[in-house]
């Protein structure tokens, strides 16, 4: 399925924010807000057929947990008592490295000016009109590898 993704363009390690982190995932064609289009780079990404619903696609926004969980674990135990969530090491587990994105865009006939991308005071969305295939683009900071189809299947099934 195709989705619209907002990725962070700044890097603030002390706040757990990595450049290229997948901050939000919305349905394809989403009309983002007037500040969002300045502060984030908006991508249309094709996740293939491994993920079929927006609810499962949003698991790409999972934090980097100390437990390595692929999604928020259940909030309650078998007796209905609350469970403390795992510790968050970084705001997001998955990101799309901007340098990789520049290269991919170039292949697809689009040029990305990274200096403009990182200027969060102006709207600059150079690739909103094209669709980026997910393969070789999404980095799992826990595994240190790019996601492949089987990873997406695993993400899709997380928590089910």
């Amino acid at each position, binding site marked *: 399925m195709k989705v619209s993704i*907002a990725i*962070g363009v700044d890097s*603030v390690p002390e*706040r*757990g*924010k990595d450049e290229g*982190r997948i*901050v*939000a995932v*919305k349905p394809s064609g*989403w*009309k*983002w*807000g*007037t*500040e*969002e289009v300045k*502060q*984030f780079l908006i991508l249309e990404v094709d996740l293939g057929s491994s993920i079929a619903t*927006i*609810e499962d696609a*949003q698991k790409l*926004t999972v*934090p980097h947990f100390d437990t390595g969980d692929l*999604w*928020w674990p*259940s*909030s*309650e*135990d078998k*007796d*209905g*008592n*609350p469970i*403390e*969530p795992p510790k*968050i090491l970084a*705001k997001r587990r998955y990101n799309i490295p901007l340098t990789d994105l520049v290269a991919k865009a170039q292949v697809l006939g689009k040029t990305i000016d990274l200096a403009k991308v990182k200027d969060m005071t102006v709207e600059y969305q150079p690739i909103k009109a094209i669709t980026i295939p997910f393969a070789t683009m999404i980095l799992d900071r826990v595994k240190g590898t790019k996601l492949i189809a089987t990873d997406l299947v695993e993400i899709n099934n997380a*928590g*089910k």
Partner: protein
Amino acid sequence: MGSARKTGTNESIHTYGNGTRQYTSLQTWEDAHTVDCVATTTSHVLECYDDAASFNDYVTIAGATTNATYFRIVRPAAGQGHDGTPNNGVSFFLTTDAVVFSLSETYSQVQDLIAKLTPATSAGRNTYVISGTLAAMIGCIAFNGASTGLVSGFSMIGGGGICVDCFAHNNTGVGFVTAGYTASKDLRFYNCIATNNGAQGFKMASNQATVVFTFTNCLASGNLANNDFIDATSNSPTRTVTYCASGDATADDWGGAGNRISQTFTFANSGGDDFHLAYGDAGARNYGTDLSADGTYAFNDDIDKAVRGASWDIGFDEYVAYTIAADSGSYGITGVVVGTLADRLIDGLAGSYALTGITAFPLVGRMLSGDPGGYAVTGFVADLVHGGIGAYVLTAEPGSYLVFGTDTGLLATRILNANPGGYIITGQEAITLAQRLISANPGTYGLTGFDAEFLRSTFEYFLNAEPGSYLIVGSEAKSILGRMLSANPGAYTVTGQEAVTIARRVLNAGVGDYILTGRSTSLLANRTLNCNNGIYILSGSDANLIYTGLPSLIKYRNFLIYKPSAPMGRRIRIIKLPY
């Protein structure tokens, strides 16, 4: 002390809603403002607009540096908040298996939002989670949460947060569940309500002896049987439950002052998810304790931001009848919550009220029973009104009434039988009303529309009996005027093709000055000049006939005749003027 809703110092406000706002995703705002609020001396606020029936969105607020002065807030924009029910306001209906609002940041707050969590599958999830120290959910609502696993309303864990004026209703899991897994933490619930949840209403769980649970002014009813307030702790933490009320016998299981068990609560409209306390409630009204000087979290208002009275009520709502009772005047009341408000208004108040909407019925019932004043009743509620009152109601109330709609007939009948005054009556039921009106009440009437047809039949009474001024237009004026002019001296403005007949009557009977226009004035003039002394100004096509026929017409009377169209020197004819 003040509102439970804290405001930050140096608030930097951004907007949330559809694509015309600054943010369409809670996560993007949260990410962009995960900063050091203290170092930058800024409180970041996201104000949500009710741009959609609901937003399918969620967020974990974590990672900013905050303190009691500079923190983050998510709240509705002014005028966008809910009405104390899940039915109106900024709503987040989430289908993703996630917590809608997770607040793990010290001092930050989520205020006055509505959330429903319904993922297709879930092993167990909470709609709201509070885990930051003195992080707070204020005035929030969690309702109808459901999935394959249990969905609870509010969960408080870890850090020692607070929940004030919140409402958990009809979730498959627990209404409010709290767990103290960290030593020496205080977990507080003030003035919250849990109703109709599939599991417990309020549940404590802990394995720490030094944790303190505090439940004050909380109300639980209709949850899992005998589970309104439940203890699942170990190691005997401190459980302070005071001034709480339950439908079952659990609110006093830990001792504590002011607890009330086995209570029956009366809510404004529980079937419509409106759990404000009703006028007649005897289970929670005035049985709470004043938290305006609370040492941890002092506040003085309820879920509607209404300032609480001298005697606090248990639960999120403070019944405010006394505030309104002191206030006479005019009120415009609309929407589904008018029932409760109406109860308050009507408890003793004279004044004018405009009531609309489907819940106006209870209000009208009360209104008509006891309160003098002017009322405008619109819509199909009028049907209930006229069905729900007795004749004595209206006979006791003089005043002015505006009655609209198809059901006004019977209501109007009652009003008009008993109350003299001025009425504006429209719609097809005006017939019945008019009949009554005209038979009994002298006064001034404006009659228009197709109902004049029926009115005509009533004018025998109307015109024969009632002196006054009348403005009559339309094709049916003929018969009306026939009656009118024979019996009532006075001033009349008559227009249209019926002027002929009218004129005959006028001139036969009335003494006075007349200005006559239109093609039928000849007949009128004949009559006039035969019978009546006076001054006449004649114009129109028939005036010439009158003018030239004057010598034969004028035999016995004294006249001054002015004809503007006659040649100079012949425009005025004075015949036997006595003066």
